């Protein structure tokens, strides 16, 4: 048996090309089986190995297979011999002898072809599978996908595969994505892409179809407490608490329609924006299932010949536009790291200096890492030289953390600097909710879309010394005690509804 195949190999390796093809095919086959075995038994765990096992090796395998007949025909043409002469030269009579079930050689070829087909099918399945894995999306086009890969890995959806949101299910989606991928390869090769990659991404599958697989609207009920800690820029980096009770219900039961009212089955909201950024809203129309519609027109942007290209039915991503690829802003990034204990709050002026360290420049990773280190070490050497000894561990950890923050958020090669990708969740800096909920979008009698502070959240603390400041008994010492009283009663009234 073994001899038979060795003979076959010898037989098809008619010249150097044929031999190379044979070597390539055989070695890549063995290597792939070997790597796959290693992966299965758990010795190989490196995620990148898939690039070799499922992409490179099958490719080499096919190239080898093509080389074999290529070599054969080349030799045939050069030598001027007939196929029969060649066969007789390369193989024994025994192998060529015709029997009822064909020549031995024919059988060998058939069996090997079957093995090849089987192997290639398996390999392509594995390849497609591998291409569905986040690590492929994130690393195959390293420089371009770098920012998205970096933010994805630390995101709330880091255990949901890219393709779950970006490709979808079914043959159509698969073909679409492969065609789109081909175009992306071309645009990378010829440098046709924009940096940073513009958003919104239009090839995403419909958000409600995707998101609602896990997050279903019937489950948006009640309230959610969100506590935010900001640290002051003083020496102690004094914490200031903001506690919001987010009213996220979708239904109108008991008059508690909350933020997800927008996507409740009974309501449909259409809008048009001035451009693709969806920041300057020209009009908003609310349609409820009783058939009633209400139109709000922008005093700033509405024109009678509105461009309908930008018209949209509101869905998840109009607010959750950064559900996964979340780019932070430097202040909040530092606040978060301090409250997680990654940055030691006992270091004097750490909030102020940490923010300064990561916002001082837009540059490459290596230079930035150096700048961040120089900034913090420099500051403490100049102002608190003792701390370099007594708190060196804390300082090192802070530096490390800040470098991580920088490298997750800032991507020089892709022009991704602070603030390039705004987050529409909430209403930071007048964006987000306030794109529509502002006094410029008014109905036919000039009444604006509601933008009451307590419409979407109760407020239990706002930059306050304690997390539940407004629930405590207000005294005149607070100076703004009227606000405490108002917010406490608002919260209680809403809660007992």
């Amino acid at each position, binding site marked *: 048996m073994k001899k038979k195949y060795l003979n076959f190999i010898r037989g098809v390796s008619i010249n150097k090309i044929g031999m190379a093809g044979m070597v390539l095919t055989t070695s890549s086959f063995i290597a792939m089986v070997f790597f796959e075995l290693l992966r299965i038994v758990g010795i190989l765990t490196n995620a990148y190995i898939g690039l070799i096992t499922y992409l490179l090796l099958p490719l080499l395998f096919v190239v080898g297979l093509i080389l074999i007949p290529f070599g054969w025909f080349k030799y045939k043409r050069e030598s001027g011999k007939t196929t029969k002469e060649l066969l007789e030269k390369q193989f024994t009579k025994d192998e060529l002898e015709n029997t009822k079930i064909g020549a031995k050689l024919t059988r060998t070829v058939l069996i090997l072809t079957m093995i090849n087909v089987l192997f290639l099918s398996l390999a392509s399945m594995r390849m497609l599978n591998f291409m569905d894995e986040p690590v492929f999306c994130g690393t195959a086009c390293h420089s371009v996908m770098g920012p998205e890969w970096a933010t994805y890995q630390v995101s709330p959806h880091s255990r949901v595969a890219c393709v779950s949101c970006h490709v979808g299910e079914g043959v159509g989606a698969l073909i679409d994505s492969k065609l789109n991928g081909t175009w992306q390869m071309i645009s990378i090769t010829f440098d046709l892409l924009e940096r940073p990659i513009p958003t919104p991404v239009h090839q995403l599958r419909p958000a409600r179809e995707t998101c609602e697989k896990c997050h279903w609207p019937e489950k948006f009920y009640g309230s959610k407490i969100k506590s935010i800690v900001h640290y002051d820029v003083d020496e102690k980096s004094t914490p200031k608490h903001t506690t919001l009770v987010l009213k996220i219900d979708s239904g109108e039961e008991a008059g508690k329609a909350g933020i997800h009212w927008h996507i409740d089955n009974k309501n449909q909201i259409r809008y048009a924006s001035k451009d693709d950024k969806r920041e300057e809203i020209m009009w908003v129309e609310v349609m409820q299932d009783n058939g009633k519609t209400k139109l709000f027109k922008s005093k700033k942007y509405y024109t009678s010949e509105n461009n309908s290209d930008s018209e949209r039915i509101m869905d998840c991503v109009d607010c959750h536009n950064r559900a996964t690829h979340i780019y932070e802003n430097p202040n909040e990034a530092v606040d978060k790291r301090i409250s997680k204990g990654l940055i030691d709050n006992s270091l004097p002026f750490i909030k102020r200096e940490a923010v300064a360290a990561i916002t001082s420049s837009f540059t490459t990773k290596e230079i930035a890492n150096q700048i961040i280190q120089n900034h913090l070490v420099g500051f403490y050497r100049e102002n608190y030289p003792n701390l370099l000894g007594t708190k060196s561990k804390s300082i090192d950890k802070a530096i490390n953390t800040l470098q991580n923050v920088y490298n997750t958020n800032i991507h020089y090669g892709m022009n991704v600097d602070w603030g390039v990708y705004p987050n529409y969740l909430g209403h930071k800096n007048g964006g987000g909710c306030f794109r529509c909920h502002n*006094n410029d979008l008014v109905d036919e009698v000039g009444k604006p879309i509601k933008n*009451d*502070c*307590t419409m979407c959240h109760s*407020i239990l603390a*706002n930059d306050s010394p304690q997390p539940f400041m407004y629930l405590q008994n207000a005294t*005149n010492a607070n*100076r*703004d*005690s*009227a*606000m*405490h*009283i*108002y*917010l406490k*009663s608002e919260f209680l009234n809403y809660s007992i509804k």
Partner: protein
Amino acid sequence: MKKIILIISIFLFVGIWGELLAANNDAKVAGKCMTCHKEKSPGIYKQWQASKHAKHNVTCLSCHAAKRGEKDAFEHEGALIATLVTPKDCGSCHKKEADEVNNSYHATAGKILQSQDAYLAYIGGGTPAVIAGCESCHGSVMKIDEKSPNKLSSKTWPNSGIGRINPDGSLGSCTACHTRHAFSKEQARKPEACSKCHLGPDHPQKEIFEASKHGNAYYTHTDDMNIKSDSWVVGVDYFEAPTCATCHMSATAKQKITHDVGKRISWTLRPPISKHKDNYVQKRKNMKDVCAACHTERFVEGHFVQFDAVVNLYDEKFAKPATAIMKIIDDKKLKRNKADFANDIDWIYWELWHHEGRRARHGAAMMGPDYTWWHGIYDVIHNFYFEFIPAAKEFNDKDVNAAIDKLLKKDPMHKWFLTKSTAELKESIKNGEMAKIYSKLFYKK
């Protein structure tokens, strides 16, 4: 009958009580204002929160609540409010101050439509310049615009001019000096509060103060002025230097603080020829009392003699003759164009009194020597002899020429110009003849 009276009384009582309740601040409503404004306009909120108002629980609605029927009242988040807070509103707590402001010269600053300055701005400049220029200091006549979200026309809002004419009939704006929303008294005590308006080519009070010894001392000791103290009596609570407020408004050991800014000013130096104000003897006394906190009586007396002499010099030597010549020109309708400011001589005469003459007199009043002389009388002389007289002579009118001739040949103060040589003049300076000509100006009332 008694029953009817009783019922009417009950109605009246309930009505008044309701009114009182409405004016009283419901914490839940005031709290709502703060909730949003802390987020949307944090600066306002923080200024207010750090202020004395917040300390005494004076909240948004204490000042901004409006009554139905008020012209500028509008619904906002369930409350009836007005953006504009007038001296009448402030006066509901600060009554004395509001009354004093209302009777002060400041309160009349908005009634400028008939003045030469406003005329020039309207015809030569145009309404935009009037609004962003003149009215920003003087105050506008507040216009109601029903379409505007806060019912105030953008042509008159924002405006914190000191003589603003408000829809409720009150005059002025407390925020002209006590900037919202901190409304601090220390801010109004500092010269910067006045410097928004009292500066520039026509009345450089800011520049004169800065150039004076008073200003010099103030900017040297600005941190030692005890400026936040509730009691701020000159010579008692502070002594390093005076500010504008010290002399014109703040308390002395004998006088109470006043918001009537003219109470210590004896001259009006605004018109072409200086005038004493009503009751000027008392007003001069009031000012001398301020000076006495730091200066001896003799020192103060001397200063006012010197100051008055400059006023008299300007009036007698330049203002009166120039005004008389202008009168002949106007009476005989010699000017080519009918409109004021459409002729060269209008501008020359205007700058003589409105700019240069005032700079000289203000410089003397507040001891800024450079403004008395180089920015003042020096400019007046140059204008008078080399612009005004030649421009007047251009009309070639016999009455004008006769007046000029008489002035330059007969008036001892002007005789030098046409009839004397440098050597002769130097000799007269040396021997005191020249000084004699002017000695009458020193004790003139």
